[in-house]
């Protein structure tokens, strides 16, 4: 292969401006592919995190209660007709049950079991139920959520979303969202009254104010201590759900399915809960993939046409190499290698340029709240795949010119 390498490398160097131009083209194309891929991944992660607010990757909840007819035989309404006209037939009218607030059965041992899963990063048990917050004449309905602050912060990054006060929920403390606090006209240290259908309520002191990035989310939640919420919702010692964070956001669906098999409760991933969001993201991914494929094809066509021209330019040289004793397969490999080299160089430069572009754009693009929209990361698997893909693409693009070079008739090529 040394002969092929040497000749391929010299041919490329001899190409001069032609080679430089195609490498610049390949670099630009690959840089954009790298940038778009990294950018999109980070951007979607960001969108999901912002949209979900305090929704976890995976939620474990009690299985919904279903009403069952006491008389056997007609449990499923659809069966009724099929069962025909047997004597003593009973036509049951089954009303679906209202779902009351219930605790997860043996949630302590579920937490232990969840921890055993290698994909699980953080676990936070919580109690959530309906309630009212009152200050003076104004009442707002909302969800009163009991949390263990340290665990909850791991799952939802609530600590990062506090804009006033501290993340602490001692007995008598409450955390409110920014917009709700504005509606009620309260600040950190002010008292509010929390009540639930099960409790006439008590006075709580605002310990912190958070901003989840969306008005409706900021009006939806009030966070109190786990024990406090258990008392408010009349669920002593119980939790209504367990929030779970997994290593990879996009892998949540699979992990949820895994967990669902080992835990006798309802396990839902954010993907199931937010179907619309996921559809939108999938469409975005599809569009980006099309753009990337198009870029790749443009690069490949560029490489192919430059090499095609090179074959014509070097007809005599190919002829002399063949006459001197280079086999067809050697000539073929000389040109395939040129494609691979262009791909390799383009990929190395393109990865560097793509990363630089990502850094630049992450500095420029800001979201509404002024934070970085995404953070450029050194994504080594992406670079490895890009390198491999670009080399393969280069070889593929060189296939046609290489075949043409290999098929040249040496006698005719020399006469030219």
């Amino acid at each position, binding site marked *: *292969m*040394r*002969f092929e390498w*040497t000749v391929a490398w*010299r*041919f490329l*160097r*001899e190409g001069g401006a032609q080679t430089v131009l195609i490498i610049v083209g390949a670099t630009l194309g690959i840089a954009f592919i790298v940038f778009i891929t990294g950018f999109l991944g980070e951007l979607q992660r960001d969108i999901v995190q912002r949209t979900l607010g305090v929704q976890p990757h995976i939620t474990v909840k009690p299985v919904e209660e279903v009403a069952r007819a006491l008389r056997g035989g007609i449990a499923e309404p659809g069966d009724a007709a099929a069962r025909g006209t047997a004597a003593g037939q009973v036509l049951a009218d089954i009303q679906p049950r209202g779902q009351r607030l219930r605790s997860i059965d043996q949630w302590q041992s579920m937490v232990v079991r969840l921890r055993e899963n290698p994909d699980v990063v953080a676990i936070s048990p919580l109690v959530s139920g309906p309630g009212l917050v009152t200050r003076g004449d104004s009442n707002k309905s909302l969800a009163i959520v009991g949390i263990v602050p340290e665990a909850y912060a791991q799952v939802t990054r609530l600590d990062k979303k506090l804009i006033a006060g501290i993340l602490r929920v001692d007995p008598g403390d409450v955390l409110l969202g920014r917009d709700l606090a504005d509606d009620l006209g309260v600040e950190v240290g002010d008292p509010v009254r929390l009540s639930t259908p099960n409790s006439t309520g008590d006075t709580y002191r605002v310990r912190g104010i958070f901003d989840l990035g969306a008005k409706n989310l900021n009006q939806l939640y009030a966070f109190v201590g786990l024990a406090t919420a258990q008392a408010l919702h009349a669920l002593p010692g119980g939790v209504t759900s367990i929030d779970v964070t997994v290593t990879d956001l996009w892998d949540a669906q699979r992990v949820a399915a895994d967990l669902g098999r080992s835990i006798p409760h309802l396990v839902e991933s954010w993907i199931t809960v937010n179907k619309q969001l996921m559809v939108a993201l999938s469409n975005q991914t599809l569009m980006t993939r099309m753009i990337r494929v198009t870029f790749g094809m443009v690069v490949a066509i560029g490489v192919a046409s430059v090499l095609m021209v090179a074959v014509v330019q070097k007809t*005599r*040289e190919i*002829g*002399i*190499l*063949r*006459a*001197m*004793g*280079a*086999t*067809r*397969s*050697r000539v073929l490999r000389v040109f395939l290698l040129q494609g691979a080299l262009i791909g390799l160089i383009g990929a190395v430069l393109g990865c560097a340029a793509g990363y630089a572009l990502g850094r630049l754009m992450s500095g420029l693009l800001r979201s509404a709240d002024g934070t970085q929209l995404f953070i450029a990361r050194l994504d080594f698997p992406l670079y490895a795949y890009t390198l491999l893909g670009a080399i393969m693409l280069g070889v593929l693009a060189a296939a046609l010119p290489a075949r043409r070079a290999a098929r040249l*008739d*040496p*006698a005719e090529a*020399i*006469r030219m």
Partner: protein
Amino acid sequence: MSGTRPQNSDAPPVVAMHGVRKTFNPGLPTEAEVLHGIDLVVQRGEFASLIGPSGSGKSTLLNLIGLLDWPSGGDYLLNGVPIGAANDDTRTRARLDTLGFVFQFHHLLPAFSALENVMLPGLMREGRFTEAGRANARALLTAVGLANAADKRPAELSGGMQQRVAIARSLALAPDLVLADEPTGNLDTQSADDAFALLRRFNQERGCAFLIVTHDPRLAARCDRVIELRDGIVEHDRKVLAPAQSGV
């Protein structure tokens, strides 16, 4: 690499052709038989010229001998081995091992230096640039008087110098036969004489056979043997007397 190769009279001739024919575009309305049964034997160490008017089939015959084209009929033995119908890879390997080429328009690879051009056949055979190959190439360049131009690119050399590099390259792997197609056709008289003298010298020093296609009767007369082709057949094939004095 150096020294005269043993002239074993039992060794088969380098080239032995019997009734070789070549037809272009067979089966088409433009079908044309260019060679009508060539009988030709080139012995080891011979210094022969091939002459004839344009269209007589010189280049076609040279391509057949050089394994660059397939004969339409007849037998061709290279070093006693039938090669006329062999596959492309076998013929390519035979070109590398037994033949050298010098073309009218020198055809060096512009991306390689003069020295590297001479080393290319070695690179092809060994798969890498060897020290032995480098030393051999240097010796050949010195022999053609271009020791100082070893690192120059072909574009920096005059036509005559390029042709001398091409001659050195054709001898890099000590071939049994060098085929030269109008090697001096593109050179001025002085350069042409120099190039021809080189061919003659390598023939005498290394015992390698030469077959030189030329239009120039003056050069042909300085060879040991003149083969004259006319209308696709060998019309004359004669030994030239006392060639040594006129050659160098």
